[in-house]
């Protein structure tokens, strides 16, 4: 497949009188690490949520691979198809509190992709090892540090292998050393079959590790 993996066209979204997105348009090429920059309140998180099908918008469209979202609510079938292509790692991780790390990672492969439990665990352990948190496989989310929880959340999203992986403010709670580590990790995860779109206001991450940078201001993408 060629062409951009993601195209966002003229997205509008208002909550009451507050305009959050005011005609945001951009596209993301296949295979890069793209940083979506902008000050707080510029609409970065909302754009990511709209692409993930979590936010209804008033006008415009989102196209991911062969799936198109338009204004108004998408059908359950459209969302199901969308989520084969898009993954989202939340700023606050939102791990499933009642399950140990390994089951956080294997729950979707087993129940959504119908993988055998043993195979899902095998792959889950590989992912955790790749992210350096394999030793925490039996721990519960509340026993993890912020950095560990983030890596588990990334592993959980990668476990269903989405071609487009989005991350919301991944460096917000990391110190400088950890940020560099994360940048390197994300670059490593990027490749032919995976594109990463990161919302951030971390200039260093954008400068040192991103393959492309988009800037948002007042609900629009300016570059």
């Amino acid at each position, binding site marked *: 497949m060629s062409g951009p993996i993601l195209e966002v066209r003229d997205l509008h979204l208002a909550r009451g009188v507050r305009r959050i997105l005011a005609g945001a348009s951009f596209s993301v090429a296949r295979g890069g690490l793209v940083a979506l920059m902008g000050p707080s309140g510029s609409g970065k998180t909302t754009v990511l949520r709209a692409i993930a099908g979590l936010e209804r918008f008033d006008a415009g469209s989102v196209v991911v691979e062969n799936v198109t979202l338009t204004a108004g609510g998408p059908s359950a079938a459209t969302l199901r198809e969308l989520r084969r292509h898009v993954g989202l790692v939340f700023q606050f991780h*939102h791990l499933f*509190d*009642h399950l140990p790390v390994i089951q956080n990672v294997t729950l979707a492969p087993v129940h*959504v992709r119908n993988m055998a439990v043993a195979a899902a665990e095998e792959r889950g352990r590989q992912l955790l090892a790749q992210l350096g948190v394999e030793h925490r496989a039996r*721990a519960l989310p509340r026993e993890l540090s912020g950095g560990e929880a983030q890596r588990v959340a990334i592993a959980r999203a990668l476990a269903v292998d989405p071609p487009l992986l989005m991350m919301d403010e991944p460096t917000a709670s990391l110190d400088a050393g950890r940020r560099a580590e994360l940048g390197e990790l994300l670059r490593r995860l990027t490749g032919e079959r995976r594109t990463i779109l990161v919302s951030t206001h971390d200039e260093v991450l954008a400068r040192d590790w991103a393959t492309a940078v988009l800037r948002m201001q007042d609900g629009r993408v300016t570059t």
Partner: protein
Amino acid sequence: MRAFALAAVVVVASLGLLAPHAVRDRDVRPELRWAGDPEGGAPYVEADPNDPAKVVGFDVEVADLIARGLGRVPRFISAPFASIDQLVARGDAEAGLSGIEDAPARRAAMAVTIPYYEFREVLAVRGADAGRYRTLRDLAGHRVGTLGGTMAYEILLGAGAYGVQAVSYDDDVHPYSDLLIGRVDGVLLDNVLAERRARGMAGITVQPKTVATGHYVAVFAPGNVAMRDSANEMLRTAMRDGTLERLFRKWNVWNGDQAALYERLLAGESVAPIADVEGGLAFAPTNRWEATRRYMPSLLRAAGVTLVLSCLAMAGAILLGVAIASGRVYGIAPVRLALTGYVELMRGTPILLQLFVIYFGLAAAIRLPAFVAALVGLALNYAAYESEIYRGALQAVPVGQLEAARTLGFSEAQVLTLVRGPQAFRLALAPMTNDFVALLKDSSLVSVLTVIELTRQTQIFATNIGSWMVPGMLCAALYLAMSLPLAALARNLERRWSAPTR
């Protein structure tokens, strides 16, 4: 119009409250407070329909007669039938009269007067069965109803030896209405009550054969022998001069039995509390320890009924509660509205009322056995409370986790069963355990549907031996034996689920 009716009720009620004081102001004689149960109705004690503060009946007139003889002003105190002895023993009233039966245990526990009326325990059956159910023995293998804590109930327990199943009621109306609809096949009660019901309800035949003979007495506190002796004198005088005969004739309950009874009493004969019991059935022991030993198996059985009923009702409440909560969280507007209505209806009305409606009220349309009605009633009521717990717990699971699950591709049903449900269940566990313990105790309410559970059996036991001490302690111990392990189990589960797995 409604406001006027309300005002009228308030005025009538305050007049009722004021009346005794008004009497006291005019009359300096001391009061004789006497306890009776107006639910017993005519001809014993009945609230005057024109003035609920006033009671009428032959027991009221006997009480007046005793009070007058003692130089006192009678004052009526309303009490549940089964509690009259206890009320008098603790001094809330000086005397008790309300068709109170002479019985060996009562003689041991209270100061009892000489009998003033002799009654016969008689069997009432449906007209169609009059030919085949003539005696208790004919009812072997059948359910026979009566008032709990009475001599008739004791006789039915004794008749258990040949297969009669005793069914205990709190009042004397429902045994007969249940007889007509086939929930019981016979009713054993005093001829005075039986004849009154047979007159008022079509299709009931009172069998002529006497199952046992008993007597009505007045009771005084055990230490109040002097007043009892004076009352006995009053009664003897009234027997001699025909006052009692006139009184009972007025209430249409005079018969030859009374003349014979008075003759024996006035000749100085002592009268056995109970006589002529059909087939010489074993009868209530007088020794408390012996009674405790005799009642222990039935107490344990009743505890079993409480436990089984509570467990089944809780299981039903959980299933229904989950359905209601899911409907209220996920359902469309009309479904949410209907379920909210259900929850508010069940929480906003007394469970006792709901049980009555399910068992007696719906009997015309659907005739549930007592245990099933109790189970359904408790489950329906508790489902409302459980659903509120689950709804709260479902809403307490962070939205972020639900969104995370959605972005991973889970369907809404999977989000509920894999992510939201399990976490909500853990949150709900502690309040659910509380509710289960509460249900265990609320299950005592089903005794109004003739289900003999632990509290009801204890009450029968206590009434029979004339004391609450031993039965009360045994009952409490049995409830604790059920509720404490439950609380421990819940604590255990909570600890396990909140502890790190490794």
